[in-house]
């Protein structure tokens, strides 16, 4: 047993040291990039003006994975919001809004220059975005580094500190939900100090996404998260790091990337004084689709359209869902307990790929028990059906040219008006009241899940398993199914997968006496991510003939959840990777109205 534990620990360490895959191309390594403004590790000098070029540099931090330079392009994250930048390779001339740079394979720096073209309205609202630009690759976002265009930069303090969000120098993992994320601070010019520096970490005033904090060592793995409005830290004078935890403040998510800013402020006799550092990040959670801002909606639609039309990645979801049988849905007399964890993994995989295109995007949920007129509109998921039962779109909506498997448009003819909820859908209170044990709650597969499909699909795609995924609304529908499960887990404290109240059946598929299909037991790996195939028959130990799509793409961060071959065990507690005994952010999924712990 002890050997098994050691082996497990070794696996975790080895996987943590590896490179996360490119979510758009899971078999390719994704460069993890560090960007420095003013050629320094500290953020306190990340200010530029509209008149002077500032030297910057970027490098690959996981350079072992690359044999040749990585072509990439610098652009503004959003040309319509916040301070704007221009780039130059020489630090002269008028600059351009995009600049190609080549990141050396050996991890050495690539240099470039930036200056402002229009001023910021707050700190960290000007964002350098670095896109993958190799001719053989797709356009994944590699880094987003936030700074400010201003004539009044903060003074550089005596204590020069580096701040690492998610305990890494890359910015691609600077996203928090309600679960705790580890951060570190280090004194860069520590030889100049002969005593530690005390500091407070808090929110920058006036920001949208709000953060909460906890001291290192104050949290317990799997059961707690940060809750304090600030945390005081002592930065060692020997150059070592001090850790703390940060999480999104429940009820105050971000609207856009880098609109949550944590600042480290020096404490003098307990009184906050000089700002030592500010770092931009995002409180990224899944939200009600009906309440998205136009900007959030536009980003989601753009990523969704690119996922299907540019990268041709959506088809495999249709192939998987149409092939899945006993792994994903209940059968007469043979229930499928994995219905919920399987679909949790299914939509998470899509979300990860969307985040490869735009890291600020999450999958919104369609709260089908309430009216959602903003969802069923021609500038979002499609207005009322046309005369032939197809959803209608404004021509500027990226979904207006949606197609899959050669079929044009979206066959969807809801049995309800966009200003009303579908009829016959069980209310959320009713669903959450189905019972406090997992097997009772699983009855929600029929209603509201099945009813939402039937009422929305009409004679269209959502009305049958074989065609449902063709409609992009499928993912939002299932995001709400998943949210209901998360709400039920929260209300009943059903996070521990080892409890049969949270999930059953336990263990692995037995050699004899099985009651449900393989893949449904707590510790079975789930098809298709385990790439296991069979005859496609109905025997309990059979798998489908094919396993499209490959293993589950990995997260961008040190803690990998749910792993390449997820089991129901790995999905029950989405907030925390239960394989690890450390405090960690799990799958990094959170819902705007479902708290943690």
């Amino acid at each position, binding site marked *: 047993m002890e050997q098994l534990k050691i082996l497990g620990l070794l696996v975790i360490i080895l996987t943590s040291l590896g490179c996360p895959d490119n979510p758009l191309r899971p078999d390719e390594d994704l460069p993890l990039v560090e960007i420095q403004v003013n050629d320094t590790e500290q953020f306190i000098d990340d200010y530029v003006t509209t008149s002077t070029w500032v030297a910057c540099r970027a490098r690959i931090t996981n350079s072992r994975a690359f044999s040749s330079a990585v072509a990439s392009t610098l652009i503004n994250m959003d040309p319509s919001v916040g301070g704007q930048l221009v780039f130059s390779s020489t630090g002269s001339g008028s600059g351009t809004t995009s600049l190609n740079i080549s990141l050396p394979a050996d991890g050495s720096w690539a240099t470039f220059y930036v200056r402002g073209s229009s001023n910021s309205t707050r700190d960290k609202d000007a964002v350098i975005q670095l896109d993958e630009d190799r001719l053989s690759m797709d356009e994944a976002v590699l880094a987003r580094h936030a700074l400010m265009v201003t004539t009044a930069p903060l003074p550089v303090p005596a204590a020069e500190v580096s701040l690492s969000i998610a305990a890494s120098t890359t910015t691609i993992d600077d996203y928090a939900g309600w679960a705790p994320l580890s951060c570190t601070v280090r004194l860069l010019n520590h030889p100049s100090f002969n005593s530690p520096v005390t500091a407070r970490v808090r929110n920058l005033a006036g920001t949208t996404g709000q953060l909460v904090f906890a001291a290192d060592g104050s949290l317990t793995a799997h059961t707690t998260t940060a809750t304090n409005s600030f945390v005081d830290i002592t930065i060692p004078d020997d150059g070592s790091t001090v850790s703390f935890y940060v999480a999104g403040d429940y009820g105050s998510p971000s609207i856009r990337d880098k609109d949550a800013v944590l600042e480290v402020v020096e404490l003098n006799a307990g009184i906050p004084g000089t700002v030592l550092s500010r770092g931009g990040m995002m409180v990224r959670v899944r939200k009600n689709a009906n309440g998205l801002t136009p900007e959030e909606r536009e980003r989601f639609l753009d990523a969704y359209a690119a996922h299907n039309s540019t990268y041709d990645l959506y088809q495999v979801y249709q192939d998987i869902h149409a092939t899945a049988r006993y792994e994903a849905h209940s059968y007469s007399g043979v229930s499928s307990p994995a219905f919920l964890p399987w679909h949790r993994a299914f939509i998470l995989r899509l979300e990860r790929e969307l985040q490869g295109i735009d890291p600020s995007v999450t999958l919104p949920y369609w709260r089908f028990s309430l009216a959602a007129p903003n969802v069923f509109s021609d500038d979002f998921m499609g207005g009322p059906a046309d005369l032939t039962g197809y959803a209608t779109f404004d021509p500027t909506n990226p979904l207006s040219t949606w197609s899959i498997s050669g079929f044009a448009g979206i*066959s969807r003819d809801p049995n309800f008006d966009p200003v009303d909820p579908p009829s016959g859908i069980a209310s959320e209170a009713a669903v959450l009241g189905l019972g406090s044990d997992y097997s009772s709650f699983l009855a929600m597969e029929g209603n509201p899940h099945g009813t939402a499909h039937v009422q929305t699909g009409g004679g269209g795609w959502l009305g049958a398993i074989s*065609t449902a995924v063709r409609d992009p609304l499928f993912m939002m529908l299932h995001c709400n199914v998943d949210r209901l499960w998360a709400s039920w887990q929260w209300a009943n404290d059903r996070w521990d997968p080892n409890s049969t109240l949270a999930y059953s059946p336990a263990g692995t598929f037995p050699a004899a006496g099985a009651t449900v299909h393989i893949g449904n037991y707590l510790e079975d790996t789930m098809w298709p991510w385990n790439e296991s195939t069979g005859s496609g028959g109905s025997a309990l130990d059979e798998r489908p003939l094919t396993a499209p799509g490959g293993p589950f793409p990995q997260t961008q961060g040190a803690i990998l959840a749910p792993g390449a071959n997820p089991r129901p065990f790995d999905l029950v507690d989405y907030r925390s990777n239960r394989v690890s005994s450390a405090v960690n952010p799990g799958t990094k999924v959170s819902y705007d109205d479902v708290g943690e712990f």
Partner: protein
Amino acid sequence: MKANSTYRIALNGVVACLLLFSSQLMAQRTRAQIQAEVAAYQELSDKLMRVFLNPQAPEVRRLAAADTLVIVTNQELIPRVLATFRNTKESDTIRSRALGLLDPQLVRDDRLASEVVDLLGDVEQSPTLRRASMKAVSLAAVAAPAMIQDAEKTFDVLRTVAQDKDLTIRRGALRILCAFGDDYAQQLLIDGLKEENADLLPDYEAVNLIGLDSHTDYYPDLLKIMQSTKDSRTRLACVNILGPYSEAQPVILGYLNDANADLILRRAALVSTQANQPASFSEITAGLVGDDSAPDALRIMAIQTVMYQRRSPRVRPRNEGELDQFDQNVRSLRSRAKSEALGKVVEDYINRLKIDF
């Protein structure tokens, strides 16, 4: 009737208050609030269930209670609801409503599933009960597929009722069968499309259903229908599904380029063309994009399509010498786009593809 609506309004009011309360606090709702909402609902639900299960209560009250309940949450009451469904002394309306309350049970109760299929196939039963059964079987298509896939009996019944006199039942059966790619149902619909006055469903709807899992064998017939039909809806439905058929592609392209065709047909033709001829789409639509007399909707959709196709570095033009006619036509629109929407998509194209040389 009046009592029914008064009771329903009162009950809906209670539920609406609960929902309003929860939605107002949605962003910051707490675990305790959810627990309180569930407890309140369960209390209400138990009261309503007692009304529904009471054969002595007025039917209008019982139906109103069922409307509010939607599903059975108290597991202990499921046997009694099942008994109500099975009780032939109850009215068909009450039995139907009992079946509706059992939606979640359908996926886990073989006997119930079998009874539902039997009811559907029994033409002697009342339309009310049979329609409720049809609804339940429709639910199985997304929540309990083996009830259909692994049960030949279900398929047999569905095939039988695919020509039922009752349109609701006929439509429901054909929808399910076609979603599962059933040859019999698809052939039935094709035959209906070819023979006037023999239609099981409106023609456009039949085409849509064949398209759920269409076999290439049906493409030639559908092409003939697309070209010969006088019904614009049927033609549109054919365009949506015939794109993969090479023989149909020139005809669909003709619709796209026909300045006299309805815009809705031209839009569908454009989407079908991009879905099935992606490699040549930019070449096909370069002229349309440069044509100021073409509808902006089509130009916007064409530009947007090619923008997404070319966004990846794998296919994006790299320098001036690699710009094709489509790129050049889009760039020339920068100075003359008349609508804001067209101007915006042109800018997006140029910026996204980084061709602002």
